[in-house]
């Protein structure tokens, strides 16, 4: 059975392809013959990622807290939006 994380990774991979191919790379300025309906494609990609994250969060909330020996590993220093000082403070909410 595939893990939700794998599915999310695949979907993020798809959005990375769509964003890159439609929005980045060199453009042949002045000689482009067609236009691209890129907005719809990008919107679709974003929706895929958004729904994936929400699904993953729901699935993870149903998992048991203990994962056996693997779950007992030491917690490394975490990246935190407010920086290392706040990350070291377990009471901080950022």
């Amino acid at each position: 059975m595939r893990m939700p994380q794998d599915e999310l990774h695949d979907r993020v991979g798809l959005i990375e392809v769509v964003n890159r191919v439609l929005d980045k790379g060199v453009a042949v300025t002045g000689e482009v013959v067609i236009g691209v309906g890129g907005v719809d494609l990008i919107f679709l990609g974003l929706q895929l990622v958004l729904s994936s994250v929400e699904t993953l969060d729901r699935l993870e909330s149903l998992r048991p807290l203990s994962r056996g020996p693997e779950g007992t590993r030491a917690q490394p220093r975490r990246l935190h939006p407010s920086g290392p000082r706040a990350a070291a403070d377990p009471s901080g909410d950022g």
Partner: protein
Amino acid sequence: MAEERTYLYCVTDAEVEVPAALTGLADQPVQTLRAGDCAAWFSVLEAAPPVSIAAVQAHNAVVQAALERAEATVPVRFGQVLEGTEALRRHLEQQDGYGEQRARVRGCVEFAIRILLRPGGGADADAGEARTHAADPARGTARGSGAGADSGTSYLQARARDIHRQRRRKEQSSALAEAMAERLDPLVRDRRIELAEQPPGAMVAHLVQRSRAEAYLQEARRLAEDVEGGRALVTGPWPPYSFVEGG
């Protein structure tokens, strides 16, 4: 005679051969046009290229094939069509064979770290409270004739909270992306950071030398496991789409 559409995928080193069975958009064979020390990979299409997820993936597959074989591949954006191979040859000459761009990405691949803020956490909790208040009819009726004014005030308060929440999300995304990028700087040649509003988060693109790709991936994945308030996913190697510009 029908107009010839020359669909361009990428520009790469001249000595690299296209795999024999490689096809691109509309299942058309991929061909090369050599000019000096560079070669353009293209297909001849009978009609305007289809616009779909499958077409985007087909475009990327051709560029990936070049990336696997050449030291320097300049990806071209989807949908670039020229009127025949002579127009393509002129274009390559005008751009000096994309020599500057090829030098910039030579020996490198791109990786992406997509950072997604967790919905419902942090600033989102404030916004949820704002929405609850704005939709609470009891707050409007409690003041009798002032209901209209109160609902207007609630709306403005909710709007202010939304703006505050968006600003906080941007700050969080930016801080996470910067923190991750700084830790990976010793392993990369260049980087780009883009903030995204929907879904909230950021994308860090890294240009990484192939010889350091394994070390980069190992470190990036380790960091990605420990993002607080969201999650991060590492993808790649990609052709260096984010590190070439213009045309």
